């Protein structure tokens, strides 16, 4: 498979140019034209699920409602990701501009950052910035007000409908879909929920134009992406890379020379063993990621890695639906039972089937993605789980 070579770029953290000029430029054009450009840019949600951002905005714009909301999902909780914190710390203005842009396009007059509780230290700075921007927006006749809402530490609240429930003061439990937030979201009104990085991308597209943006990445994965790189690596931290590189190139650059596996996409992502590095593309055509890249070298026990993930999930499932609540416990306790010889190694096959059921039948993305890590680790490192 042909793939892009790994290439580092620098768009996201570039200092913001003139916010008001940019907004005025967009406001001078037709909203639908901008939407078409956004759709054409190929930008997909940077939280990991990869829904076309332009389409989401279009649906929200077309949804009937006297009131609409824009929410920035800053509940960055996926194990191994820490890029949103950096964005909000360094270029929060771009995020807020993106939200205002979205508000203008879809017809919303309120926008909230849903900030994970652990990032509360960012709020004095954000609040100050928001107060200023609220005034600026008024000065150019854009009726849009920004504010912050805080999470309380549940992983599941990164799921957009659980996030909305949490914002409404309820238990953070995912809703049944449909209806989707674009038609019935926060307080029952049409709502756009996008990741922090997605909003920055929309600003970049407005700035450099969709033609320029489309030159980055591949056909299925346009643009660039921030990666949170951790684990057994030669360089760790946040790196901005074009989408569509092969994992082999990635490991050449960031691995420590002894890489056994890479967990792409955090606990809810996939574990790729060395033998599949070459054929694995980082992007929507291969393995998409919200940014978390964890590198494991040969000193790591994949049993421990899986045990750790499952322990995380059995605790962070909201507990609402059966496959996720009970399934997570069964997977977690199941691998321990196999390790302790209380169940035969073939019990793992039953658990793989269970993981499939969780993938198909769980209510939200959390339960549906537990099987990713489980199946990919059990299939590729079965001997480490059993012995």
């Amino acid at each position, binding site marked *: 498979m042909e793939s892009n070579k790994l290439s580092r770029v620098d768009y996201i953290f570039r200092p913001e140019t003139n916010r008001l000029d940019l907004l005025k430029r967009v406001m001078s054009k037709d909203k639908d034209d901008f939407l078409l450009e956004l759709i054409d840019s190929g930008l997909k949600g940077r939280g990991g699920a990869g829904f076309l951002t332009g389409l989401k905005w279009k649906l929200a714009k077309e949804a009937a409602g006297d009131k609409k909301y824009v929410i920035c999902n800053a509940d960055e909780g996926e194990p191994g990701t820490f890029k949103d914190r950096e964005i909000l710390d360094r270029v929060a203005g771009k995020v807020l501009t993106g939200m205002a842009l979205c508000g203008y396009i879809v017809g919303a007059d309120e926008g909230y950052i849903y900030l994970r509780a652990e990032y509360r230290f960012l709020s004095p700075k954000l609040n100050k910035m928001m107060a200023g921007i609220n005034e600026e927006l008024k000065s150019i006749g854009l009726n849009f007000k920004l504010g912050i809402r805080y999470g309380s530490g549940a992983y599941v609240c990164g799921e957009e409908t659980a996030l909305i429930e949490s914002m409404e003061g309820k238990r953070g439990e995912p809703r049944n879909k449909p209806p989707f937030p674009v038609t019935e979201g926060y307080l029952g009104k049409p709502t756009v929920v996008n990741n922090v990085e997605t909003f920055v991308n929309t600003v970049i597209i407005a700035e450099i134009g969709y033609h320029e943006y489309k030159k980055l990445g591949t056909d299925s994965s346009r643009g660039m992406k921030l990666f949170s790189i951790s684990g057994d690596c030669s360089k760790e931290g946040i790196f901005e890379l074009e989408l569509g590189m092969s994992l082999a190139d990635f490991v050449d650059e960031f691995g420590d020379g002894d890489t056994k596996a890479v967990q792409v996409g955090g606990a809810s992502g996939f574990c790729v063993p060395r033998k599949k590095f070459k054929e694995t593309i980082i992007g929507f055509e291969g393995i998409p990621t919200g940014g978390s890249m964890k590198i494991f070298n040969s000193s790591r026990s994949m049993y421990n890695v899986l045990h750790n993930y499952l322990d995380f999930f059995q605790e962070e499932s909201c507990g609402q639906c059966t496959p996720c*609540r009970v399934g997570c416990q069964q997977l977690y306790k*199941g691998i321990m039972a196999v390790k302790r010889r209380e169940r035969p190694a073939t019990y793992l096959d039953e658990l793989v089937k269970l993981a499939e059921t969780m993938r198909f039948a769980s209510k939200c993305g959390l339960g549906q993605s537990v099987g990713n890590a489980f199946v990919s680790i059990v299939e590729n490192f079965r001997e480490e789980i059993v012995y």
Partner: protein
Amino acid sequence: MTQKMINLTINNIPVTVEEGTTILDAARKLNIRIPTLCYHEDLCVAGNCRVCVVEQVGMRTLQASCAVPVRENMQILTNSMKVRQARKNIIELLLSEHRADCTKCYKNGNCELQDLANEYRTGNQMYLDLVHEKSFTIDMSSPSIMKDDSKCIRCQRCVRTCAELQGVNALSVANKGHEMKISSFFEKPMHEVVCTNCGQCINRCPTGALVERNYIDEVWNAIYDPTKHVAVQTAPAVRVALGEELGFDPGERVTGKMVSALRRLGFNSVLDTDFTADLTIMEEGTELLTRLKRALVDKDTTVSLPMTTSCSPGWIKFIEHTFPEFLPNVSTCKSPQQMFGALVKTYYAQRKNINPKDIVSVSIMPCTAKKYEAQRPEMRDSGYQDVDYVLTTRELAIMIKQAGIEFLKLEEEQYDRFMGNSTGAAVIFGATGGVMEAALRTAWEIVTGTPVPFENLNITPVRGMEGIKEASVTISGCKPEWSFLEGVELRCAIAHGLANAKQLMQAVKDGKANYHFIEIMACPGGCLGGGGQPIPTSPEIRKKRAEAIYSEDEHMKLRKSHDNPEVAQIYQEFLGEPLGHKSHELLHTHYKARKRY
């Protein structure tokens, strides 16, 4: 406006349904049953048990059929390999967190999880047992409800019942992940929280996690004790529902068979709560008229109007917690059960020449809150606990089965002649609006000397299953002593289900509603939908029970409480007059303001 119609196929059979229909309902139209657990007709859709998942061709994930509306050209498979695999896994998962000691379980034989396990032949337990490694204690603190978390499958039907139908919120979800559970406020025992003991959660619990505190053995022991005289009373709504537990379809009246069965069980006297329901009308009707007189004639500003009914112990506990400022508005009348209890150990004991300490007073109720009510400290006016044991309709059915009585073939019998007489007005206490109707039949006639101006005494505006009903009658043709009521428009309201009650009382509190008399029943449909009634319950079943109640009323010779000759007799021989000294002592009570937390 005509509804848009949607075409789809389910298991390759085409079907056309209205837009907005769920896949589950569309399948029902084709007589395809999709199993469910967290779904309940009375409640909002949760979509969390995932037992009802189906395959939508072209979709990666399975869809919860109870939650997903149909779309044009959908192709649904309800029994594909993927669906079966998932459904079986899910049932096995539920069983792994459920203490499946079915043979020892109170709900054995009436458990939706058990039915599913049977259907899917889950046989050997595939997954690890998650129950035994956690420690569970059964909450037996409440005299009405037992809560056993080891049987709970977290479907949240109880939570939705408590919040949506009842507006009580005594039960809610606590914690997350593997520690997620259904809990009370700060995990306090059930008797220390705002629980009204209504038992609606029990009616909707698919397993044995929530059941009534049963007193079956205690009652058997009393029956077996030769030194005891065991008197049983039966509430109006029991007779139209008991049949459901014993082989009849919903809506069958089994009064005669029930009386016969109670005798065969060995109760020494078989009496009717309906008698004290008639008495309640005399007391409560007089109380209302007295309050009206004080307000209209004496211009007494301290009189509390609107007056509300007091028959429903769930409602009483609710108002004590939620609207304590309205306690003076509640009629001081005890509920018919408690009036009966107080009279059994006084009036009845005297007349039958039995030492009241040897009387065991048992009541058969459609209700779990009555168990709590019987144990209230203020319910001992006879000098003893007025009602010793309260059994639900379900518990009575269990006793009948235990005794080997073939209920279907039983001859019909009549209640005892003493304290067994009643009127149609008492029977309709079992349906929402019934107390109002009975009270109006009597009060109107006291005031005007003529029957209520409704065809065949059927005051239809107060009937039906609407959550809050309003009615008003303008009084005319008053007798001279009631002339102050001439031309007065008597405004009434009726609510059933505590969420509706809450809404109604809030309106009164906010000054948005102005009534003289309010009837409130804690349970949806009134007592016929009570927490002690046969499981399952649904709007359809409750409608049938209501029809049976009104038909029982139509078939009674006497249909107005004040026409009950026994009522006249007890006032003459024992009580004196309504609201008289003796009545106050035995038939009236007081309430206690309680905190929300």
